[in-house]
């Protein structure tokens, strides 16, 4: 039951169908990777799960530990334990990282309960140290003027602070140099454990050298067309995506 299940999911933007009957099960404790060409629908899948208002689900379901989350507001899904690390994190001028994460942590507490400030900051600083994020970052506005690497590290910091049950990482490697990739990956690996299921969306195999997945799925035209273990990623890297298409 402790699974994020995607069942025969169809979704479109406007009149254009993008997901066409996608099935996938991610049990807590496992890390799955989705690979696929640009335009295969990978990022759409992430956004549809999180409840982005631009997409319409036409049929199918997404179940978080057995509970359907479609039709819920994005914030309700988030509070149930679904986290999305964005490919392009948004800037929020004037709102500091410390206040933003604090508001998000506070939103998870029962009504009337106040977050204890000293505890919060102690935890925040510890997580920042793990991700090599300088302290001065806490007073900077969320993502404003950040480099690509800083934005991605900030996403992982939020994930670490919010401790989701299921995390979807959308192209977390894009725009990272090799050093930043190592820092971000070790941050993600530190969060792996029996309590969390992860879905790592990536275009390149490179990321999977650092975040080693339990399973790899290949996506094409809005469906999972091939699944396998971590070696599938290497095979794809060597043969290219056309190998999958030809094989089908």
């Amino acid at each position, binding site marked *: 039951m402790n699974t994020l299940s995607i069942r025969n999911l169809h979704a479109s933007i406007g009149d254009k169908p993008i997901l066409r009957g996608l099935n996938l099960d991610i049990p807590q404790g496992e890390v799955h990777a989705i690979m696929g060409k640009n335009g295969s629908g990978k990022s759409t899948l992430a956004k549809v799960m999180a409840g982005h208002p631009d997409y319409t689900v036409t049929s199918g379901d997404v179940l978080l530990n057995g509970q359907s989350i479609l039709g819920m507001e994005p*914030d309700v899904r988030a509070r149930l334990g679904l986290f999305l690390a964005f490919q392009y994190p948004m800037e929020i001028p004037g709102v500091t990282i410390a206040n933003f994460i604090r508001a998000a942590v506070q939103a998870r507490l029962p009504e009337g309960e106040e977050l204890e400030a000293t505890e919060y900051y102690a935890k925040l600083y510890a997580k920042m140290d793990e991700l090599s994020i300088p302290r001065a970052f806490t007073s900077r506005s969320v993502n404003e003027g950040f480099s690509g690497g800083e934005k991605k590290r900030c996403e992982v910091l939020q994930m670490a602070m919010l401790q989701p049950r299921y995390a979807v990482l959308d192209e977390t490697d894009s725009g990272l140099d090799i050093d930043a990739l190592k820092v971000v990956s070790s941050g993600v690996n530190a969060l792996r454990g029996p309590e969390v299921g992860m879905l790592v969306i990536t275009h390149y195999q490179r990321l999977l050298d650092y975040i080693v997945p339990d399973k790899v799925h290949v996506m094409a035209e809005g469906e999972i067309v091939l699944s396998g273990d971590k070696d599938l990623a290497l095979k794809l890297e060597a043969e290219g995506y056309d190998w999958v298409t030809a094989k089908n």
Partner: protein
Amino acid sequence: MNTETKPDINIDRSVGDFRYDVDYAFDAGVGLTEKTIDYICDVKGDPDWVRKFRKEGYKKFLEKPMPTHWASKDLENIVFENIRYYLSQGQVPKRSWDDVPEDVKRTFERLGIPEQERKFLAGVEAQFDSEAAYSNIKEAVGKQGVIFVGSTEGLQKHPEIFKKWFGKVIPSGDNKFSALNSAVFSGGSFIYIPPGVKVSHPLQAYFRINAQNFGQFERTLIIADEGSEVTYMEGCTAPKFETATLHSAVVELVALKGAKIQYITVQNWSSNVFNLVTKRGLAHEDAEIKWIDCNIGSRLTMKYPGVVMKGRRARGEVISIALAGDGQHQDTGAKMVHAADETTSNIISKSISLGTGRSTYRGMVHIPKHLKKCKNNTECDALLINANSRTDTYPAITVRGQGHSVQHEASVSQINAEQIFYMQQRGLSEAAAMSLAVNGFVNDLVQQFPMEYSVELKRLIDLEMEGSVG
């Protein structure tokens, strides 16, 4: 309607939206004629020069047309003959809260004024309709020679300072509403800071309208003598009535050589109040006047705090935040008149329009030809929340001569759906996400408010945003 209100009642969006019944000993009745003015003069025991000043103001008020050729047509909905111009329980403000009549005291207690006074203020004046019910300063501040009294007491007991500056910064004929205020003014503060005295804590005035169909016309005059410093804060509320209420104040500031005045307003009138206020300061050599102005409430606010920089190196500043909710129009801005060399002015204005709210920025900067090395910086940023929200900007910058430096920046932005989605994905409700984004937009300005006010401001913005999303 005597409402027995328990203190733990679930207070509505607007903290000030409540009303206790009060008996008024003095009531000038409805409408405005010379007789009304004579009544006010008699009740207050005004000296002859004040009676004359009032009557001249009244004449100018009648002569001047409504400024609807440039301002909102909504002004035409003010029915002057339906307004009550003077209501009070008595003219002598109490020095102790214990002496304030119970029916008035509980209003201020509910608004938290005595508590704030104990915590962080150097002095408080609390005005209830036409007159101050309470006025006091901390002993230590009084010993420094600081005068902080109501305008009536000011003109009666300190005529030598009062008369010298009263009506000089803002002549009664400045505009139709300054003329009206000159005719019927009552309440407001008179403050004098002796040379070199730096008042470490803020002085505060709190204005409360309690009666229906009432017009509040306070008059404030602050004189900071050479090298002195003072911060003055004002807050205001009224219950929400079915009929329109008028608040039309005149505030004059005089900063003598090297003095500094900071004037902070948090305006949270209920949405039936026409708030038409004239505020201006005169800055002498090396003096500094800073207006920090926040407008959240009212139906229509028209207010353009100004600084006349009369002495060399004088500085003027207006920091302004406006939040125009459904059905509200915040028409605010600043006036900077450079009248000496090397004077510097700075205007930063941020407005937020939500629902059918409209915010207007009007700025006037004037630098004449004969001056040298004057500087002005103007920034105005508008944030629109809904598709039907509106903002307008009317900057009028006149710079003549050479060697001046003038900079103007304006922006209009919207909170985009992707930002809201991002914040919602982190677990914040749509309303909380909106609040956070709006607070972020004004954050740099809010930090200029004293701590207690910035917390209050954030809370007010949260309340406004809660109602703005479906």
